[in-house]
């Protein structure tokens, strides 16, 4: 085996032969945050307060204080986030192995189905059909569910009705199959969670959280620009903040795509 040429890799980035796509939403106060019944604890939304902006509080410098929950904006869920993953080793963002922070991605395009049905569920047959075209999902890959949800405005993005949010996601069988049969690194969505909006009514409730984190796998949510990734062949860089015993973290997610 020949030596790995990181120089060639770097050169390809500089030459634009590898495009780096930002899969991240801007962290902003108006971006919807997960909502729980008010008697539960709530995530702090994103808050940005200016310390100084070239003014009496700091004549030559501008900086902000920020407040935010671990699960705001484009963010990663670590296994410890869910009760099923609470006793696993290295289950928080500070102990997450760095090799899990860069991984290939399989992008499953569900945008047409999601546009037709906000409660669309990705099932095993659809994943098998995807494999028939694009090949078997390799172990250690991210599986990213493209729904074009990131293109929606805040109201349609949250899509909350009197019976809770209506957003697409995987069904329980699909997640279990990806974890147990394909050994994926994690599952990523454009919606506010890895589970469908109505996932609380599934068996088990919130199956993506249940199975992914129970098996030490990760979740990525509120992703953007998935339409710019090819079905296979891209590389995702997703390195969370090193928060002590953190259950998740907002992060910059990059998609590397070869342009030739």
């Amino acid at each position, binding site marked *: 085996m020949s030596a790995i040429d990181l120089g060639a890799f770097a050169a390809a980035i500089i030459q634009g032969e590898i495009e780096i796509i930002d899969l991240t939403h801007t962290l902003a*106060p108006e971006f919807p945050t997960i909502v729980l019944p008010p008697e539960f604890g709530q995530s702090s*939304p994103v808050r*940005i307060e200016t310390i100084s902006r070239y003014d009496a509080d700091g004549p030559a410098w501008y900086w902000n204080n920020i407040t935010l929950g671990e699960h705001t904006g484009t963010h990663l869920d670590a296994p410890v986030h869910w009760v099923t993953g609470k006793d696993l080793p290295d289950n928080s963002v500070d102990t997450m192995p760095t090799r899990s922070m860069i991984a290939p991605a399989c992008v499953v395009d569900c945008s047409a189905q999601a546009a037709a049905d906000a409660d669309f569920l990705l099932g095993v047959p659809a994943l098998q059909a995807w494999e028939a075209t694009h090949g078997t999902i390799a172990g250690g890959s991210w599986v990213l569910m493209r729904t074009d949800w990131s293109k929606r405005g*805040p109201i349609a993005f949250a899509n*909350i*009705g009197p019976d809770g949010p209506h957003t697409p996601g995987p069904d329980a069988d699909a997640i279990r199959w990806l974890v147990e049969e394909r050994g994926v690194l994690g599952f990523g969505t454009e919606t506010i969670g890895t589970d469908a909006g109505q996932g609380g009514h599934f068996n088990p409730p919130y199956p993506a959280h249940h199975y992914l984190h129970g098996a030490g796998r990760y979740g990525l949510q509120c992703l953007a620009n998935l339409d710019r990734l090819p079905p296979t062949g891209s590389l995702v860089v997703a390195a969370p903040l090193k928060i002590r015993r953190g259950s998740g973290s907002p992060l910059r997610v990059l998609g590397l795509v070869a342009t030739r």
Partner: protein
Amino acid sequence: MSRELAPPPRRNPLVRTPLPQPMPAFRARATHALTAAAAEGRFALQRCPACGRVIYPAHDACPGCLSPALVVADVPSGGRIVAETSVRAPLHPHFRQRSAWRIGIVHLDCGPSIVAHLHGDCGDGERVRMTMKLDKAGTPAAFALPETETPHMQDDPQLREFTASPKHRRVLITDGRTAAGQAMVRAMIEAGVAKLFIGLGEPWKPLAEDAIPSALKGVEIVPLDLGDDASVRDLAADIGGKVDILVNTAEHIRPGGLVDQRNGQALRDGFETTVMGLARLARAFGPAMRSRGADGTDNAVAWVNLLSVYALVNWPEFGLYSAGQAAALSIAQSLRAELRPGGIRVVNVFSGPGDTEWFQHLPPPKVAPAVLARETVAALREGLEDVYVGEIAKDIKARLEDNPKAVERELG
């Protein structure tokens, strides 16, 4: 009879906005004995328990018997005008801005003769109902009203200087999601506002279609998230110069005290809304409102805080909530002093538990949001500063005046 107030014209952009000229504010300490009653809309004067004499203006000792043990007590408000005049060229800039200004001497049935501001419908020799109002400097001033209601009585220009009627004014309700906010919308529309801005944060959270009559003329829903600095600043940049009355209807009610909380989240969330949110509003909207205190008949006049009566004494069952309310009250006191130079009246409306989801476990009496809204509008019309709505609030206030330590123990 008063002339009905016409809807104010749009501003002439070439004309300098009149600056609020502060009223003469210095008063002897004894005068402020009358301030509390005036703030609540009661007509109270000093009375000498030794000789029974009713005294005005306020003294340190009874002018009749020299007893220093004067009390302030509600007294009959009837009287007759014995002299009246119009001051056409007053010396003080505040009154010059408003001349001619009618004043008169009213002989009160309870004894003293008072130099008072006169309502336009009060003629020489006529019977009047005397009130004590807080003027724009926050000091008590005698204001004579017609004995019985007259047509368009509220529209009298001199009375409007001592009140904060919503009629033809533009009102910002900061949170249209709360029950109080929604009730306030209806009450303000009934009060004849020219424009109603209703703040709505997190627009992606649904709101029942009939919650706010947003299709009504003059009603406009505006984005406002009191937790977000930029959101508050952005709205003030858009409409800050058009808010004549601000009503802060935001609330964050959670049960519980300190010891049994698992973390500080509820306390922080509560303070974020009630304390930090109020401070953000003050920073963003305060300067423009303070500068517009003399800006025509739809000038900036009032800032209303809806507070719990447990701002005055902690109710440990809702201990964190009470703490946030106490902090908000303290902020409101600072705000009152800071806005006074503009003649903006800061009105604190104290109520007991509302008839809402967070107090569902409590038996009546509870304050219906519609009652809270109605009393708020009434307080603005009367020019009050401190308002107690509902039996619980009135009871707590009375008991605090009697024995605050006992109330603390009884609540906990």
